[in-house]
């Protein structure tokens, strides 16, 4: 035991941090005894405080007994042993959204994790603050990501990398998914940074107890990370039950309303032609048919798979449900969804593995997909069919093929389009949303709450 280490451990701040950390972990259900706490203190002593990542690993090794506790541990560690206080020099002042997005695109293209970490700090500082009265103000990753929209940088980053490395190599076909994983990582960094800033403001004990996050049904589909989506998927069944009750009620009302004039008059013959007993029209026995046409490309995957699961859970309400998925080719996935109920996590992976959705590239192409759908699956759509198109209408600059959509509207009973992007972004970049919206009823559908309302209103009865 060195003299230095002794002074370190005597440091009451360090002891407070360590016990605070342990208490917070226990608060999250991790079982940590005094033995482990003592080991943790010895680890700090042996490792010193100079290197924060070593300290993180050392504390994890002494305090945890399994891999399951690690995500909680990392989040809590970031609060009790933060990278620093406030923001580093040079950060702050007027934040320029486009400039930050440009630098983010560059860092994503270079796969530079240090730069991504710095940008996360800047992004939260520039766009994550809210409120101005003490007590109601704070820092939010949700706001930051909502302003920055890192997921919309995919095409730009891809083109940048291709411009640099060329597109010829085999590994080039992996590029988009790799970029998506980097974006996911950036999102995680922003979340951690916002928590750190919030902890400075509101006290780390409180933030450690309940990290800032909107409830699952209000999380933007396009902003939700993996964990959030998993949480959301668990809400599918309850949501479906609620919707089913609502749909059934609507159907009863619709059936009750109409009086069958002919049958009422026939019945009135016995009363001398006075119609005393109105006969209500019998409910139409056939239930409507539903077709879902879903973009499952990475940029909107969370949205489409959630919606597919929801509709699948509602299938009793229809005489027929067919689901088609596309990226740049279309394939029917109705059969895959039946298993999907048991394993919602893997749904998207399964669809993408077992259906033929892509030709030689991996970006969505609405024009090609709509064209192929009207050609190959003409039989799926008839006068009793309601069609829902799910997707962001981002064509990656390809021809939107408006005639195909027009053809669809002529043959179907109704065509609705649910777009997970905020209305303000429709038409920006490669979005063909305004053009499509002239042909069909396009609605903004950013989170589960909106989806619930829309599905309840738009589903045919």
């Amino acid at each position: 035991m060195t003299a230095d280490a002794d002074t370190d451990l005597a440091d009451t701040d360090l002891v407070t941090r360590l016990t605070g950390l342990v208490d917070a972990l226990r608060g999250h259900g991790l079982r940590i005894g005094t033995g482990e706490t003592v080991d943790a203190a010895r680890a700090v002593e042996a490792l010193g405080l100079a290197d924060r990542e070593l300290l993180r690993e050392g504390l994890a090794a002494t305090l945890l007994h399994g891999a399951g506790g690690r995500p909680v541990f990392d989040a809590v560690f970031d609060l009790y042993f933060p990278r620093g206080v406030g923001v580093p020099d040079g950060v702050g002042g007027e934040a320029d959204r486009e400039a930050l997005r440009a630098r983010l695109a560059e860092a994503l293209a270079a796969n530079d994790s240090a730069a991504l970490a710095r940008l996360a700090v800047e992004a939260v500082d520039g766009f994550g603050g809210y409120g101005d009265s003490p007590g109601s103000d704070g820092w939010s990753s949700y706001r930051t990501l909502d302003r920055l929209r890192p997921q919309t940088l995919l095409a730009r980053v891809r083109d940048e990398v291709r411009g640099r490395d060329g597109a010829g190599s085999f590994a080039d076909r992996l590029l988009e998914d790799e970029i998506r994983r980097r974006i996911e990582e950036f999102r995680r960094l922003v979340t951690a940074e916002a928590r750190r800033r919030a902890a400075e403001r509101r006290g780390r004990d409180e933030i450690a107890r309940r990290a800032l996050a909107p409830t699952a049904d209000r999380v933007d589909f396009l902003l939700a990370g993996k964990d959030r989506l998993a949480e959301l998927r668990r809400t599918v069944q309850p949501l479906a039950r609620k919707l089913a009750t609502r749909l059934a009620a609507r159907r009863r009302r619709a059936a009750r309303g109409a009086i069958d004039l002919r049958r009422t008059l026939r019945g009135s013959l016995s009363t001398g032609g006075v119609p005393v007993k109105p006969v209500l029209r019998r409910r139409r026995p056939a239930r409507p048919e539903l077709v879902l046409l879903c973009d499952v490309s990475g940029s909107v995957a969370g949205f489409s798979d959630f919606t597919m699961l929801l509709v699948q859970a509602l299938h009793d309400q229809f005489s027929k449900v067919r689901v088609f998925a596309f990226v740049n080719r279309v394939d029917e996935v109705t059969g895959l969804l039946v298993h999907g109920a048991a394993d919602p996590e893997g749904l998207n992976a399964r669809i993408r593995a077992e259906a033929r959705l892509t030709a030689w590239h991996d970006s969505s192409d609405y024009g090609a997909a709509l064209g192929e759908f009207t050609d190959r699956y003409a039989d799926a759509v008839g006068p009793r069919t309601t069609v829902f198109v799910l997707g962001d209408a981002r064509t990656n600059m390809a021809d939107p093929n408006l005639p195909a959509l027009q053809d669809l509207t002529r043959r179907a009973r109704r065509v609705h389009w649910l777009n997970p992007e905020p209305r303000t972004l429709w038409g920006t970049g490669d979005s063909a949303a305004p053009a499509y919206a002239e042909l069909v009823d396009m609605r903004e559908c950013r989170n589960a709450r909106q989806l619930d309302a829309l599905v309840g209103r738009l589903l045919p009865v």
Partner: protein
Amino acid sequence: MFTSVDDVSARLAETGYLASPAVATTVFLAARLGKPLLVEGPAGVGKTELAKAVARACDARLVRLQCYEGVDESRALYEWNHAKQLLRISAGRGETWDEARTDIFSEEFLLPRPLLTAIRGDDPKVLLIDETDKADVEIEGLLLEVLGDFQVTVPELGTVTATRRPFTVLTSNATRELSEALRRRCLFLHIGFPDAELERRIVRLKVPGVDAALAESVVRVVGALRAMDLRKAPSVAETVDWARTLLALGASTLDETVVRDSLGVVLKHQDDIQKAAAKLDLDAL
């Protein structure tokens, strides 16, 4: 054993093991705190190799207890050499039974197994208890006893206490949850798949003939396969095997044909191969 975390990294690297910061830190602490190290993670990420590398780096003898279903005290701790004892008795030396008994339960007739071997003697040792999750739960009681204060009581010989504690590594693929008590005895380390940079270095270290560009492509494709939700995701061992195969095939870059023809080295299940081929847009296999 080690003077710092960097010292761990450097000395493991000399023996051919490239440690991530998490691995190096935890090994350093396990040595410093004198606690056993429980290493969990999928197959083929270098758990067993880590224990061997520590032994090489410290000039220590590796004592390995390979666990399997049904491994018991006589395989893990010690056994008496019954055949030899019988021979000794029937050879008879005209002594009393008491004398004979003392004699046949002496060191000469003892067959020490790994746990006993590891705590006897003064030479530095690394005790590797490999694939602990494969053993039955009953053996954990024995492990707890031995790993608690590194002493064991042999009724006929008395208590053996380690004069020099071995550096102990338990590995597990987590096919079964080890008991809470055993976990509490240990420092915990999870080894997952390495990041791309580390994996490239491992490939180039293990297969020196592979150039940087090919190593990078191999690691990228393996990374993509791991993201695919397969029955068995490829591990470091498969990455290294694949690089070796490519070298043998004389492939200097990855292309569609090469990948299609060698995918079987990386993926073990037929349906995984099919799924991956579809996702990677390879022509039908």
